[in-house]
């Protein structure tokens, strides 16, 4: 207590000067809106780019690969062209679902919408992502199993079996991680829109 009294007496000027600084800062606007806007824009661009890449992958790359695969690998009958066709269908389904997610979110114009609409869109988008993942999971499992079997030529070729399975598991995990990160970015964008409007 005595020490505090000594402190108060000796350093009253320091404390009052520090108080003046606080007072001054209270009335000043320390601009952070530019930083918030820039960060929000970067996230929005990132989400937008991610959706475009997904659409390119499922709408162009995967179908082209599937058609080329069907054209060049008909040696095993249904096992080959059936697989190609399934990949084509899954890619088409993925394209439709991605498009619906993209339109629901409308990330490019999210910041211009009212807070209620932006929040509603983000919530709908979140539900849609979960639902779409569920819808895609069934054909994806079939594609995965078929890929593994096809790669090992429907025989018990253990090394190829293990390698293909591992590759698929890693790529699926990576895909889900990316998806999760994008969803988190969308949430952050919404939070930043809210902050900027305050």
């Amino acid at each position, binding site marked *: 207590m005595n020490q505090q009294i000594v402190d108060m007496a*000796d350093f009253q000027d320091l404390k009052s000067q520090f108080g003046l*600084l606080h007072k001054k800062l209270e009335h*000043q606007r320390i*601009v*952070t809106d530019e*930083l*918030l806007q820039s*960060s929000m824009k970067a996230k929005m661009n990132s989400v937008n780019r991610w959706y475009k890449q997904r659409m390119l992958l499922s709408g162009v790359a995967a179908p082209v690969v599937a058609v080329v695969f069907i054209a060049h690998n008909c040696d095993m009958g249904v096992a080959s062209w059936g697989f190609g066709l399934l990949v084509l269908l899954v890619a088409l389904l993925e394209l439709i679902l991605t498009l619906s997610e993209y339109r629901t979110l409308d990330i490019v114009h999210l910041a211009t919408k009212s807070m209620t609409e932006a929040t509603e869109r983000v919530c709908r988008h979140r539900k849609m992502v979960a639902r779409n993942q569920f819808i895609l999971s069934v054909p994806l499992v079939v594609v995965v199993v078929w890929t593994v079997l096809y790669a090992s030529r429907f025989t018990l070729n253990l090394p190829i079996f293990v390698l293909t399975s591992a590759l698929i598991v890693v790529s699926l995990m990576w895909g889900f991680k990316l998806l999760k990160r994008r969803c988190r970015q969308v949430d952050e964008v919404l939070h930043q829109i809210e902050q900027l409007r305050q």
Partner: protein
Amino acid sequence: MVREFRQTIYTVCYFFSKDKEEVNDLFQEVLINLWRGFPSFRGESALKTWIWRVSLNTCSNYERKRRGRVQTIPLSVGIDLYNDDDDHTIQIQKLYDRINRLDPFDRAIILLWLENMTYQEIANVVGITLSNVTTRLFRVKEQLKAMSNNK
């Protein structure tokens, strides 16, 4: 979070900078570090303690070298405590002149003390023991007293 603690961040940046431009740079640097570090903030300490720690670490480690530094966007801090000449600013500049003569670690401790933090809170932020805080604060206060006597 940034809005709520902008005063704290600005205060630290101010006492660790030479001019307005450097305050702007430091302010951005602290914000970037807070953004980067926020996902790993587990709430083990109070948010304010964490913000003080990040701000003080950033400011004391700050180097004026541009090379290798992350490209930041221009951000203007709408206050100039170096050039304004109203009475309050002059008083604040007097405080700045005294505190800025201390070494960075002592500067951190005295800033936390001026922020009315308890010795235990100061120890938590700077990562030293309670008795160390007491000893260092005593020395810092002696230095500050000597400075005012020399004036």
